[in-house]
């Protein structure tokens, strides 16, 4: 009768003074640490420009992609993108007695995300445009306590409606009111498709389809590899457990 140790003797034997099972735990720990490092460098660091989304989720605020006329997008908070003074967007809305919630889209299930066209740097807190807006809004709010002006959306609307022209005309001269979009740009986006534009891709796709159909059985090759890999591992474990004591 042969006497074999439990699980190949991982509780019975030591290597360099440390039991086998401790070596296994150390190996698992190292694998875990390596996994965290890989996750950090290949996933988290890669997403650096969008880390704000995580903070938006944790601190429950919205985000905006602000873009200029060349469609350069910057991800900033809704506070920076929509509010005139140093307060949160919610506080500004409450002061304006406005509870409109119309995000362009949501990221995941709950992070509100807007896209805001701002070629004149209204959302840059240190720009002279923002300072002018701040100044005008401050003066407006003193005169109109019941009609507070605290968000850029409302400021833009009042500017468009001409409500600010009467008293702040000199300051408003320094702000641009509109951006002219050329017809070439509009036509370019909506021009009719030409068949020649897609023909090359159709032919490429035809070749790919032919390749896929030709190698349709080869897609099971990975299953074969997994099957034999599994058999190898099981064999190795069986050998380790059933081997004779040293």
């Amino acid at each position: 009768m042969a006497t074999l140790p439990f699980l190949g003797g991982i509780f019975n034997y030591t290597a360099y003074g440390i039991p086998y099972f401790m070596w296994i735990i150390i190996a698992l720990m190292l694998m875990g640490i390596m996994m965290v490092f890989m996750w950090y460098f290949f996933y988290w660091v890669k997403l650096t420009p969008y880390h704000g989304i995580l903070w938006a989720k944790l601190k429950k605020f919205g985000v905006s992609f602000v873009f200029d006329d060349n469609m350069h997008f910057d991800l900033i908070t809704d506070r920076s993108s929509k509010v005139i003074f140093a307060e949160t967007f919610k506080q500004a809305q409450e002061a304006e007695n406005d509870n409109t919630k119309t995000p362009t889209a949501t990221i995941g299930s709950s992070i509100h995300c807007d896209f805001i066209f701002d070629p004149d740097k209204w959302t840059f807190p240190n720009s002279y445009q923002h300072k002018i807006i701040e100044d005008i809004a401050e003066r407006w709010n003193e005169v109109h306590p019941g009609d507070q002006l605290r968000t850029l959306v409302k400021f833009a609307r009042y500017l468009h409606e001409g409500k600010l022209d009467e008293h702040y005309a000199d300051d408003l001269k320094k702000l641009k009111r509109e951006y002219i979009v050329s017809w070439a740009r509009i036509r370019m986006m909506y021009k009719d498709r030409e068949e020649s534009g897609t023909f090359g891709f159709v032919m490429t796709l035809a070749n790919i389809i032919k390749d896929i159909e030709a190698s349709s059985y080869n897609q099971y090759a990975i299953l074969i590899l997994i099957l034999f890999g599994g058999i190898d591992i099981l064999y190795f474990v069986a050998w380790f457990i059933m081997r004779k004591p040293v």
Partner: protein
Amino acid sequence: MVDYVVVPAGMAFDPNTWDYTLLLPIWGWIIIFLLGVGFVVLVAMVYVWIIMRPVSGYGAVGDSTALSKGSPTQVFSIWKNRSFVIECVWYYGNMLAYGNPLTKMQMWFHNSEKATGVSAEKPVMITRDGFDGTVDFIAEMAVCEIPPLFNSQWGFELVPRTDINGRVVIGEDGTPELKEVERKDDNGIQYMLSTFSDIRTRMSLLEKLYPDGVPIPIYKPYDLSEIYRYTPQNQDSLKFGADIVEEAKEWSRDDERNTPGLFDRFGLLIICGICGIASVGMLWYILPIR
């Protein structure tokens, strides 16, 4: 017959160096602590992954797919269910398509280089599921500004008010009373713009009326509901992709050249099978179970 030693006999721990107070030896608590830390780290990683998953296509690291010979491009996708995601889509000579177009058929045609933006120092294209081309936000916003601008100036006209007998009603000042009605052309078609096809039909006229271009507010949020109102109809990205795939399949069927041989069809399968059997055989030879 094999007799297993279930109780670890001759365990290598030295009770003198490891303290067995607090129910477990110290090394047990260390392991539990490390496992706890590992669990917390894992949960945090999964949580971050769930939050960041919608934007994980940033940087467009392409994987090995059917279209992987194209250029991987990061794409902002805004869908009708108001989801926003950043995806990796393959750019293939004017065309944007997912890695395996046979299973995920949406495709977009890249008409305008102005529809390419930059996000975090990387080029980005924008797509929507209701339109089969890449999107230039600014052109879209301009299109939304055209109908109110045109309609307010040209959509209506003032005509004399008439009574039930068709006679012109004269006001107190002696001039005919006027009323605002929709302006119509000689064929009875109204001037007012209400859909994108109206705008497309009158594009030349609009260019003459507003030669400089279309003014849009200097600060304006992109309003998706307004955009969908003036989106070209029957230009759905999924239908566009399905048409392209169908056309490609027809070409593929018609092409009788290069018929695949036996090795093309089964070659990889056979090689993997042989390698697998060989690996088991080698293991049997090196580590025999006796």
